[in-house]
């Protein structure tokens, strides 16, 4: 009797392991989307619920029920680790540029069939042939952004608000914020000195380090997301961040704080693009989803929700969108860069090789210790 019960229990345990191993195979179509958190219009604040609307639209169009599994990740590296573990399969992912390059090198992306993505024609010409996808085979750009300098006009003289020099200005000792991650912090110094941010030569990084050490006594603190609160409350007066995030701060600025924004030259650019990873289960469906994301209503809703610039002509030429954003936002988000592609290819971050990364991190440590 005892042995029988034990055997039975063991059998149940084993079965449960194997059953879960087999996974669930359902009859309604499933699309697995993997995106950054808070990076899609999700129906909050009476906005457009992109995922649910896509499900409805698909059923009306193709007469078949579909379920979208929408999952989120916190960083490119997290996404990469999860995909390369082989434990999950996603049909659409939206990584940043340098990660796309790395995934392509690792054969983790499938070439797209653009017959299923006719809306690709609305993507601005200057977003084609970027370094991470020179042949336009794997990616459809989703958003882009440019790093600018945010400052409190109540503290900073307008005359000083130019270029990267503002972050090194003695006058504002103790009011300056610097990035708390090596790549972004070094880049501010490299742009200031006119160095290449993707250089692998040690000398270039060392001179950037010397510049950062010069800046260190002026810096209030090294921050990432804390920048929002410090700028909004007027605790700090100068910091560099992405243009879209400036508007988030502007919305929440305290009385007696007047945040303003400008672009230094040169500066950093990023592009996040939709692509299909090689573990995709239903490529055509994934392409239909990408095409849907480019169509007018979802594209505008997403651009308004995320507050980053869109490379989609249906968005940036739409009257309602322009009205909704306001003149100032349009000017800042879309600075009218003529040769975006060329600037981007020159100044955007590329994936550094491991040795250089280690070296940069060791320099960064030495800065932070002092």
């Amino acid at each position, binding site marked *: 009797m005892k042995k029988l019960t034990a055997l039975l229990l063991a059998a149940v345990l084993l079965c*449960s*392991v*194997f*059953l*879960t*191993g*087999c*996974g*669930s195979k359902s009859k309604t179509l*499933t699309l*697995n989307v993997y995106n*950054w*958190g*808070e*990076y899609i219009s*999700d*129906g*909050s*604040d009476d906005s457009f*619920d992109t995922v*649910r609307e896509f499900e409805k639209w698909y059923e009306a169009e193709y007469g078949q029920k579909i379920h979208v*599994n*929408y*999952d*989120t*990740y*916190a*960083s490119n590296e997290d996404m990469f680790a999860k995909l390369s*573990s*082989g*434990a*999950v*399969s*996603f049909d659409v992912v939206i990584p940043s540029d340098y990660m796309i390059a790395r995934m392509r090198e690792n054969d983790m992306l499938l070439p797209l069939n653009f017959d299923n993505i006719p809306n690709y024609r609305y993507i601005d010409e200057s977003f084609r042939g970027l370094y991470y996808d020179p042949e336009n085979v794997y990616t459809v750009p989703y958003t882009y952004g440019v790093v600018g300098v945010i400052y409190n006009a109540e503290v900073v003289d307008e005359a000083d608000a130019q270029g990267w020099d503002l972050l090194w200005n003695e006058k504002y000792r103790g009011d300056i914020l610097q990035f708390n991650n090596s790549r972004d912090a070094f880049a501010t110094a490299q742009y200031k000195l006119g160095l290449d941010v993707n250089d692998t030569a040690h000398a270039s990084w060392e001179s950037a380090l010397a510049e950062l050490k010069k800046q260190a006594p002026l810096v209030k603190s090294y921050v990432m*997301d804390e920048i*929002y*609160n410090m700028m*909004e*409350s007027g*605790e700090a007066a100068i910091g560099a961040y992405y243009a879209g*995030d400036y508007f*988030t701060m502007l*919305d*929440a*600025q*305290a*009385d007696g704080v007047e945040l303003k924004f400008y672009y230094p030259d040169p500066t950093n650019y990023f592009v996040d693009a939709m692509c299909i990873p090689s*573990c995709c*289960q239903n490529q055509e469906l994934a392409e239909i989803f990408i095409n849907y994301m480019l169509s007018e209503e979802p594209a505008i809703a997403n651009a308004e929700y*995320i507050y980053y610039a869109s490379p989609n002509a249906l968005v940036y030429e739409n009257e309602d969108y322009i009205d909704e954003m306001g003149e100032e936002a349009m000017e800042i988000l879309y600075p009218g860069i003529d040769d975006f592609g060329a600037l981007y290819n020159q100044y955007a971050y590329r994936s550094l090789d491991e040795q250089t990364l280690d070296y940069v991190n060791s320099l960064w440590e030495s800065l932070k210790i002092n």
Partner: protein
Amino acid sequence: MNRASKIYTALIMIFLFAPIAILLVFSFNQSKSLSVFSGFSLYWYRELFRDAETLKAVRNTLLLAVSASVIATLMGTAAAVGIHRLRSRVLRSAMDTVTNIPMINPDIITGISLMLMFVFVGRLFGAATSLNFGTMLIAHITFCLPYVILQVLPKLQQMDKSPPEAAMDLGCTPLRAFFKAELPEIMPGVVTGLIMAFTLSLDDFVISYFTSGNGFQTLPIRIYNMTKKTVTPKMYALATIIFFVILALLLISNLSDPEAAETTRKARKKRKAAKTKA
């Protein structure tokens, strides 16, 4: 208590509860800011209940925590009874060590090794995705189990052996004797184990992170993933609600635990007696 120790206690309380208080206050803020309180409003609570993805994550988390803690409690209680009845001392200490391993093991190792096992078994059967609700449930049961055993085993060791023996003498089957005479004795341990398993499962991040699959995200993972843009004040509202639910659970379990109630009553009586004497 002299003044210095009063100040010390107050300081400790401030350090412990100031973050929660700030979160609580700013969850009622009108604007998005964490630095400026621009007015009382329930706006973020309304937003929270409109956010379908977050509510789904809450549902997932609760579903997982309830099922994992119930299963872990059943298995853990049975295991504790089994370990308690082992005659060989060597075998018993061996079982003790084995059950302690998942508890001492860093979460990250448990998480990665479980994920590897699931992927391996999944590959064996040619499945494209090997992680799902089932794998997460197994993972959560795995790390909850030792805590339940650890709560129940001491109760078994403390309890008087004679009532179950007497019950069997009087004709109870061993099973019936267990339910009638043994289980009520160890119940406080079982309940504590259940609550511990529930809270552990509720806020586990590391193991869940490695074993979660497509379409099943728990709350901790969802909040972590919001960091590309800022975490919205909706989450302050959610955290406030969770805090009060946990607080209520804690109060209920403390008040309903007769032993604890008895000790507080005794302590109160003693204090009163001391006061009247003085």
